């Protein structure tokens, strides 16, 4: 695998950097863990660094942080109301983590944490656990009314409830698969087009001329990937807000 320089899957390899074995389980510190740490460190470090002045009139960096704050706060307030604002730190952490992880992945030779479904699925399950856990803790058994839409005839109610339950269970799946699939597909496409440039230009003069087209495509796809990186973080955060709305206000 490693022998082929244009192998598009090679960039997603997870390999241990510091092998750790505890009780027969593999707890190795991998390149994925390294980039997760880098993501968390970079996002937290940027926010601490940019707000260190605490200026009443924000500078460039501080206004970037403030814009992110306002953006997330508006998103959450729109979706879950003022009562949902207690989840603001949670949503903000998830949004910045996914966004920074996606953007770090855009550097050449860097590992994209969110291109592995286990990472995105874990994030989605954290969201769903918070929704279910907070919903039951706050509203008790009446939270399960979220599965019973109002104004449905009793004859078809069992079917509707079953459909609602399947629909609820499909949320973490759609949340995680969307993010993972977009990042994976984007990076593979980028690598394939870049690979065309390499293989074509090894064919001589004709190949070099022919490789201009995939090179342009690679540039265009890079721009598209930056858009997708932001868009997917945004979608992930928006859906998190919408699901949290169900935890805060189960009766709809």
């Amino acid at each position, binding site marked *: 695998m490693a022998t082929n320089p244009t192998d598009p899957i090679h960039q997603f390899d997870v390999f241990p950097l510091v092998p750790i074995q505890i009780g027969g389980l593999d707890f190795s510190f991998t390149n994925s863990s390294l980039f997760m740490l880098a993501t968390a460190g970079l996002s937290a470090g940027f926010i601490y660094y940019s707000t260190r002045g605490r200026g009443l009139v924000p500078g460039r960096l501080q206004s970037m942080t403030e814009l992110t704050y306002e953006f997330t706060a508006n998103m959450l307030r729109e979706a879950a109301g003022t009562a949902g604002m207690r989840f603001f730190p949670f949503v903000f952490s998830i949004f910045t983590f996914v966004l920074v992880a996606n953007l770090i992945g855009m550097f050449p030779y860097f590992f994209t944490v969110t291109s592995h479904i286990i990472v995105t699925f874990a994030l989605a399950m954290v969201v769903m656990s918070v929704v279910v856990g907070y919903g039951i803790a706050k509203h008790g058994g009446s939270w399960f009314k979220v599965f019973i839409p109002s104004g449905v005839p009793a004859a078809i109610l069992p079917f509707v409830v079953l*459909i609602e339950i399947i629909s609820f269970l*499909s949320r973490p799946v759609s949340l995680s698969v969307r993010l993972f699939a977009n990042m994976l597909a984007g990076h593979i496409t980028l690598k394939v087009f870049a690979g065309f440039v390499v293989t074509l230009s090894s064919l001589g003069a004709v190949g070099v001329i022919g490789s201009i087209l995939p090179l342009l495509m690679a540039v265009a796809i890079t721009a598209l990937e930056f858009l997708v990186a932001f868009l997917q973080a945004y979608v992930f955060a928006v859906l998190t807000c919408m699901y949290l709305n169900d935890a*805060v206000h189960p009766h709809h």
Partner: protein
Amino acid sequence: MAGRTDRDEPGEGALPPASPGTSPATVAADEWAARRAALGEKLAERSVARAQETERQSGSGSSMRGMAEGLKLASEFAAGIIVGGGIGFLIDRTAGIAPFGLIVFLMFGFAAGIRNVLRHVSPKPPTAAPQATADAERAEKPRNS
């Protein structure tokens, strides 16, 4: 700075200081009123332009929101079918009722996928929700305190 030069058109900038009128107080008042009217006109003009600019920007923002929406809906629909099929497959495996669990639950999954899409598309719940949430919060407040 460009706005500053726009404003300094002949006649206006020179008005208040150079007032050769008889009683300075009344003339000054007239001039101030005229100047205020002119400035108000310009301000209105500019605020219209600014409103158009913000509208244009929000328009581009909403198109991006539309793209996010589209990506969301496709995967919501697929996820419903995947989960339905998965449940059916598990029921088949545990209960041993060959293909029927899969068939029935694929259909339920399809319905759930449609339900997912409808939930995100239908404009009614979001418009009704803020009212409902506001009511709920108002109702919640006394309970909390």
